[in-house]
């Protein structure tokens, strides 16, 4: 358990901190785990607090207790990462040739299908006029011009900037 001084009275933060300590203890295979409780240092923990503290340990153990094993060589996570990367490249190849909007229309992402020429709020989308100027967009770091392909240092940055509305 973490030192009691970290139990400030914010029982939610205390419960979270206890969970981190439980994770460390379980991942490093401690034979004894002194279980932290979110009301210690405030009052003598109720029986119900003790029950919640044990629930915390049980949850962390079942969800992430063997997390450390996952990063050993040839572990499941490694194989999974290679498979996901390979499938991602295949999917991206398809999306790149079919077009992202068509892929969305086909329901490629989850079950959400949106036609390329439809959707809620479409009547509020207008083509920018010649000489369009929006100082707010500039201040917020949004773009006014299309960045030509290959002129970006980080291939991801252009995509991320597109999210800034």
């Amino acid at each position, binding site marked *: 358990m973490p030192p009691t001084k970290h139990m400030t009275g914010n029982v939610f933060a205390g419960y979270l901190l206890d969970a981190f300590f439980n994770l460390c203890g379980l991942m490093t295979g401690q034979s004894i785990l002194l279980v932290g409780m979110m009301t210690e240092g405030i009052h003598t923990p109720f029986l119900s607090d003790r029950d919640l503290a044990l629930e915390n340990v049980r949850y962390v153990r079942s969800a992430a207790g063997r997390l450390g094993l996952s990063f050993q060589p040839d572990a499941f996570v*490694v194989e999974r990462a290679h498979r996901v990367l390979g499938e991602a490249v295949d999917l991206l190849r398809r999306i790149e040739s079919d*077009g992202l*909007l068509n892929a969305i229309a086909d329901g490629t992402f989850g079950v959400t299908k949106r036609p390329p020429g439809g959707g809620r709020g479409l009547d509020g989308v*207008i083509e*920018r006029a010649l000489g369009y100027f929006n100082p707010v967009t500039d201040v917020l770091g949004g773009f006014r011009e*299309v960045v030509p*392909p290959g002129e970006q240092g980080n*291939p991801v940055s252009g995509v991320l900037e597109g999210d800034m509305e």
Partner: protein
Amino acid sequence: MDGTFIWFRGGTVTPKLNLDPATVNLARELARRAGEPVTRLATTHTTVSIERR
């Protein structure tokens, strides 16, 4: 991303997944190209909500 260490949020970590950096870069490049038409659409259009703020 070619050595043992990669930069990650101000620190260095040792890659443990042994992913091929060329494949990772290919995926990023494909994603960039796939998103490009949408980015172009966004930069040539505006919306009522943007102009209202």
